[in-house]
């Protein structure tokens, strides 16, 4: 689908058709969610109103959306590296978790030492990046040396990462006295990443999010590194023949994505939860995959889509409070949206006379 879009210059010229089809798929997704709500016995219009209210009802809530947007767009921008290289880095979820584990480990080891808090925090971030990169590197090694598809390697490692967290929470890092799902002992307050007064939003998270967007954008659009990743993603055999060291670049793309994901994990620990919990990744990894697909693997679009998804998530929490609806509804909406957009893109390419020369049907 990526190549289709690039293949057809005449489709681009008629932007309004594309716009029409995209809005149609949004409508279909909305219709689908409405149906789901009706099936669950909830008043759909009220639910949507509550979601909007929940996301944008007050300044505080809007900053909550931003606080969700920042890690989400970071994960997505990391994933754009692997998407560009043609990799389905489903293991990103585990990479976030490993980042969180590594950051927690550093903080727990250093919190008694009396080092200045910002030094500890920076070390925790670096450790988080290293942890995420290492987990991603493992996926890469499995793929390059044994040919295990990154989807399976990544998924397996995701579940392993969950286990690792559970083991830590219930084992070596358990709270004194009781071990429970509530996670490890919270860090002392001076080791929390500073947030804006009265809000949950940390300016540091925002700054890191913006810089990751810029870095990934420049990498992909203006460097040889990005061009080589693109070549690998479009046709790995030809890229190899033309002299691109494909294994090395795929590995680098995974490391880059893992590092960003690990940084998100470290932020989750230091800025949001202040301890290691079972659900530390908040599902940002899987959400990031959806954002990337919906944005058609384009950096700038991802920024908007991530914002929309973040708003859905925050609005979904409101539903749980007021209408007693499970907050997975936002996941349903996000998934439905991506599904219908994929279907719409397909129909657009299918039922339109194209310039694509017919490929031979047999290799």
């Amino acid at each position: 689908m990526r190549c289709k879009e690039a293949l057809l210059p005449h489709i681009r010229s008629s932007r309004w058709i594309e716009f029409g089809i995209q809005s149609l798929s949004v409508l279909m997704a909305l219709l689908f969610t409405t149906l789901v709500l009706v099936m669950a016995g909830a008043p759909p219009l009220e639910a949507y109103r509550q979601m909007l209210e929940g996301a944008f009802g007050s300044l505080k809530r809007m900053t909550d959306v931003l606080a969700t947007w920042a890690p989400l767009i970071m994960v997505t921008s990391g994933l754009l590296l692997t998407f560009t290289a043609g990799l389905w880095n489903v293991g990103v979820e585990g990479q976030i978790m490993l980042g969180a584990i590594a950051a927690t480990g550093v903080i727990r080891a250093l919190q008694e030492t009396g080092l200045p808090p910002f030094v500890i925090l920076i070390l925790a971030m670096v450790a988080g990046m290293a942890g995420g990169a290492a987990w991603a590197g493992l996926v890469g090694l499995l793929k390059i040396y044994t040919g295990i598809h990154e989807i399976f390697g990544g998924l397996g490692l995701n579940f392993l990462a969950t286990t690792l967290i559970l083991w830590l929470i219930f084992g070596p890092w358990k709270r004194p006295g009781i071990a429970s799902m509530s996670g490890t002992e919270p860090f002392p307050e001076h080791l929390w990443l500073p947030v804006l007064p009265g809000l949950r939003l940390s300016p540091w998270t925002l700054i890191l999010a913006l810089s990751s967007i810029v870095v990934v954008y420049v990498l992909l659009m203006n460097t040889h590194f990005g061009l080589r990743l693109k070549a690998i993603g479009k046709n790995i055999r030809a890229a190899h023949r033309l002299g691109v060291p494909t294994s090395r670049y795929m590995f680098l793309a995974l490391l880059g994505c893992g590092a960003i994901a690990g940084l998100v994990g470290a932020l989750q620990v230091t800025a949001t939860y202040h301890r290691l919990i079972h659900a530390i990744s908040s599902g940002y990894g899987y959400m990031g995959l959806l954002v990337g697909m919906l944005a058609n693997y384009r950096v700038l679009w991802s920024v908007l889509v991530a914002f929309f998804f973040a708003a859905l998530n925050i609005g979904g929490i409101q539903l749980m409070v007021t209408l007693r609806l499970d907050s997975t509804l936002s996941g349903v909406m996000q998934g439905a949206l991506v599904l219908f957009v994929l279907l719409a893109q397909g129909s657009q390419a299918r039922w339109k006379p194209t310039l694509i020369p017919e490929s031979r049907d047999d290799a």
Partner: protein
Amino acid sequence: MRVEMRHIYKSFGPVRALQDVSLTVEAGTIHGLLGENGAGKTTLMKILSGYLRPDRGEILLNGEPVRFASPADGLRYGIGMLHQDPLDFPTMSVLDNFMMGCENGFWLDRQRARRALQELARLFGFDLDPEARVDRMTVGERQQLELLRLLRQGIRVLILDEPTTGISAPQRAQLFDTLRRLAREGKTVIFVTHKLEEIEELCHRVTVLRQGRLAGEAAPPYSPRRLIEMMFGRSLSKPERRPALPGEPVLQIQNLIAGDYRLRLGRVNLTVRSGEIIGLAGMEGSGQHLLMRVCAGLIRPWEGCICVRGRDLTGKPYCAFLDAGVLFVPANRLEEGLISGLTLTEHFQLVYPTGGYLINWERARAEAQRRIQEFNIRGEPETMVEALSGGNQQRAMLALIRKPVHLLLLEHPTRGLDVESSMWIWQQLKEQAQQGAALMVISSDLQELLEYCDRIIVFFGGQVSEPMNAEELTTDQLAQMIAGYGWRG
């Protein structure tokens, strides 16, 4: 059955494959369809058998207009096609292949199918083991199997697309006998080829295509000169052969053995010198592609060593070969050669990066423009490679050759190109040789190999011949070796 095709048009995107082609074939005759590579013969026959739908035009069987939506429809009307590359299931058994398509009912009756197969095989004098795996058989045997399968399906019109490529001389004689017999029994046979002698030997009538158009028809006695004129539009003058002045050895292969899961290639001992063009001939899958990929560094040999300009590269990764000036240009342009979805500029940037880490797109564009002009590519810097025509894609691949190149390896560099493009490509290759590169070229066009190469190596089932001087060879000698004659041991 009398077959008529009237005013057929067919385009693939911007490429016009067929324009206003008509063809009439009488029942009980063998009708030749003659044309060079890319003339549209296969496209026309795929339309007749239902694989492709024409943009315009109609098909009549015994005077009745018919429309085919798929090969299933073609088969229902009794039209069957034998493809150049047998369209069978290589990993499955002969019997499975035979049963697929011509068995009815729910349960597989292997006993009955085996009996039917053996009976048919006896009738035509073929020797096929029902339990053998198809990918272990020769092309000729696979063709026989397909033929029997089609007959069992009750076809009345048989289309054969270049059936003699890659089969042995006795198999060819047997095939021709079979076809004559089928024609006598009233079946309609359409024989697609680019070889004049086969037309003379076999066909009751011939239709010639040139560049997607009807070039003419003829009946025996054929005048070869006239047919060649129809095929090429003019009589070809043989290019002047300039004796090569081989220089230093570029590629030295010693005691090399390589293989994959079905073929063992070896032992190969070969020295290629600077300025030389070596042609590699053989039927598909005889080992020539394997050797080329080993020389390119894409496949590691089991034994033996490869030296390029005195440096031992055995077991080194592909990039070491690239650095040593080895360059491989594969046949499948959009699968291994070029990257669909990337522009020409992006391709040139991949191979010749400008600047440091960052790309200066303006400079990159200017650079690309320069190369596009130099190599006479019809396209813009922003053109996606898949939007180029085959000939232009081939030019782009030549433009992507990293300098300096010492050993240039090409697979089917002119396959599917028109005469003009082919000649341009060969001219470029000659120039590369004169500038000191050593070339190895795979081609299935023997004429082409004899014309342009200095020495020729023939492959047969993994065996490799001594390099032979092209000037002392004839097409017949070459064809015999390809078919497995004249091999020691």
